[in-house]
């Protein structure tokens, strides 16, 4: 059992979220101790259960890798939110909860009789975190949107990729996860204020993907200021916009390096061309910043890179203090000596998949041995409805008979 204190281990969260934005938020809160009660639709559950990748590529509600990694450290309770009895169960759960997180389209909670005002009547100290694409108000609040649309609007997509090709997004669902992460930060700050500054008065948080991306994924913030300074809108650079910078081919793959006029002297030393620094074209930072240096230096750097593996180049960059990283595949990442030596990836057992590796903790809380020592291991994602009985009987005091009746009525 868990010993010592985790920051949120006295916090109960009613989690009405689904797919990616909200589950990422509650995943973060669960990792640091919160009791996350995930409410799922009876029979089918969170739609993320039907999204790829699937274990052995066979679809099934307990087989989605997306769902499995997003829902560790949570308990699953099935409740039909379309039934009045189901909504009553939610209100009862809220009575003894600290936080409710949801990512329905704006207005849906209200239609279900679970709007913020209604919930405060049940529990005035509840913090309600609403996550949505565009926010609870404003002209776009009911716009349709998916991850690529939101990145295009809020992120630096216009400046991502190559000028002669289309703007490209970040991988996977990164913009959604970013919003969920901000949601976890917002929730924790609001809990702090509710408990310690407001004598138990909770509040409603409005977190949107559009605004959290503008705020800013991808250094959007700096570019928004840069535009106001120069009047130049961002656009996609060519392959190499600065000296000794860009993606270069190595013996076994590709390598990303950032020299620029500020650091190119280190790259010159790394490739053993110190004498170059004595030539007037390379002697000063001002000279090194001239655009014609980009192609000149590529002529030296390209062959040097081609003769080395990306791991050799990485070692050299570290030795010379140069900013650079190998363009790894996920397979490279899982066998990377840096991550491996720290035991970063966590093996988690699951009835469908057996023990497989998951990405590790985002950050590590270093507690003294007397306070519990290392962080508690993650619990696997719940099977659909795995904790329905335990939460309804222990949490709400429902009898076995009552639970059976609810099940027969398909409320749970």
């Amino acid at each position, binding site marked *: 059992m868990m010993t010592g204190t985790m920051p949120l281990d006295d916090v109960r969260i009613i989690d009405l979220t689904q797919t990616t934005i909200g589950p990422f938020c509650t995943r973060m809160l669960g990792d640091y101790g919160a009791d996350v009660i995930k409410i799922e639709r009876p029979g089918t559950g969170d739609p993320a259960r039907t999204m790829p990748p699937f274990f052995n590529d066979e679809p099934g509600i307990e087989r989605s890798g997306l769902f499995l990694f997003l829902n560790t450290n949570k308990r699953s309770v099935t409740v039909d939110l379309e039934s009045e009895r189901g909504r009553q169960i939610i209100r009862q759960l809220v009575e003894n909860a600290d936080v409710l997180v949801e990512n329905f389209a704006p207005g849906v909670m209200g239609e279900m009789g679970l709007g913020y005002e209604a919930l405060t009547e049940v529990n005035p100290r509840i913090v309600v975190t609403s996550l949505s694409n565009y926010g609870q108000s404003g002209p776009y609040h009911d716009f349709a*949107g*998916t991850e690529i649309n939101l990145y295009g609007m809020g992120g630096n997509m216009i400046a991502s990729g190559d000028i002669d090709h289309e703007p490209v997004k970040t991988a996977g669902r990164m913009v959604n996860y970013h919003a969920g992460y901000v949601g976890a930060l917002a929730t924790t700050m609001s809990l702090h204020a509710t408990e310690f500054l407001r004598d138990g008065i909770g509040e409603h948080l409005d977190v949107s993907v559009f605004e959290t991306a503008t705020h800013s994924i991808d250094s959007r913030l700096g570019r928004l*200021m840069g535009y106001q300074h120069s009047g130049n809108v961002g656009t996609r650079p060519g392959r190499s916009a600065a000296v000794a910078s860009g*993606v270069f081919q190595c013996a076994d793959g590709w390598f990303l390096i950032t020299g620029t006029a500020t650091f190119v002297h280190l790259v010159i030393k790394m490739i053993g061309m110190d004498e170059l620094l004595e030539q007037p074209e390379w002697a000063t930072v001002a000279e090194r910043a001239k655009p014609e240096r980009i192609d000149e230096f590529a002529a030296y750097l390209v062959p040097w890179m081609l003769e080395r593996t990306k791991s050799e180049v990485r070692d050299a960059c570290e030795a010379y203090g140069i900013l650079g990283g190998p363009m790894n595949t996920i397979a490279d*990442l899982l066998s990377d000596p840096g991550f491996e030596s720290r035991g970063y990836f966590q093996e988690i057992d699951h009835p469908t998949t057996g023990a497989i590796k998951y990405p590790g903790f985002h950050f590590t809380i*270093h507690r003294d041995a007397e306070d519990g020592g290392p962080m508690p291991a993650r619990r696997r994602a719940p099977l659909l409805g795995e904790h329905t009985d335990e939460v309804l009987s222990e949490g709400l005091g429902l009898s076995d008979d009552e639970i059976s009746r609810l099940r027969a009525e398909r409320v749970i």
Partner: protein
Amino acid sequence: MTTNGREPRSKLPLDGIRVLDITVVWAGPYSTMQLGDWGAEVIRVESTKYFAATTRGQMARPPKEVVEAQARAGGMGYPDNEAGERPWNRSAVFNAHGRNKRSVTIDLTSPEGQEAFERLIAASDGLIENNVPISMEKWGVTYERLSKINPRLIMVRMPAFGLAGPYKNYRTWGNHMEALSGHPLIRAYPNLSPEYAAGGVPADAAGGVGAAFAFTLGLRYRRRTGKGLMIEAPTAENFVPLLGEYVMDYTMNGRVRTQVGNEHWTNAPHNSYRCQGEDRWITVGVWNEEQWRSLCGLMRQENLVEDPRFIDMASRFENRHELDSTIGEWTGTRQPHWLVERLQAAGVPSGVVMNERDALEDRHLHERGFWHSLDHPEAGNYRHVGPAWKASQTPNDTPRRHAPLLGQDNEYVYKTVLGYTDDEYRDLEEKGQIGMDFAPEVP
């Protein structure tokens, strides 16, 4: 703990919380920006003798060629591309993330500096840093030492890869740790060399959010246990879970996905499409049949609904390149905002690929009160983003203060917070520890 010098409490959640900030570049500053936005008194501990590249600009005194190169490479340089007399107070990126923070100059390499630093640690709640661990050790910025001075200190450390391990002192920015973690190779175009792969630093943004979250958790931990806490938040470890489904596809199925670009796992159309105008684009991402039929209707190509190549999601995904050309022909002669207005009215998930001008003029962001103008004495008046979320009990008119000039708050920190006398202060000024300019020898 001393409370001298704190601002009167208002209602922001972190009011009365003092956080020391030894952060550089982007991930660290973004974390303390989040804390400052919500009321923390963030004090940047800086030095007149050491310039951390890419924090207050690339160099303290960049030659004009460097300013021009910066303008060519993305335009995140200086107002009107003029570095000005004190360039370190005019950097676009710093002046964006520096808001709501204070700046004190302390030379951690001198005994006087170490004394001031120790006194400041004793008067603070937290410290956040994102430096190469070897530098922090050199300056004595370790939890082991600082927690003895202040056992209630919450310290969040954000090395690139960890405080221990073979990459401990491996120096990178977000984009390099993303490369090592697999992101740009997944993000690269499907049919082009990875040389064209997009850069960008979502790892830094996530690192900033993560460290702010970690600090807030630390506060709650301290409240409950009475003890401080050290939290290790390596930016790379914080980032890898954002690639979670790709990691799982590999550990479950052994599949290695690269060069995915804008492709979705199963859905099509899902891409960006060129529009009328210079470098204008929209994105469309269809996830059900109704949206697909609406899209065909808008394009006046109802025949596509029955076309066997596009008859269901699986067929559309298989024939996505043909589909993309068809949509591109329709969008290519139309304006992006015109297109998105109609697509949204028909319920098709879509959006303009917004450049900075679009964002600053966006009607939704305006109606939500997202932009705030702020004066900066050496850079000018510009618009800033507001807080990252809205909280019903917590009106937040952030940003409240412009990004600090170097050493702007020296008097406040030394005299008001730490109780230095005028004589002691003057002595440190003479030694160059207290100042508002980088030493002449700093490039």
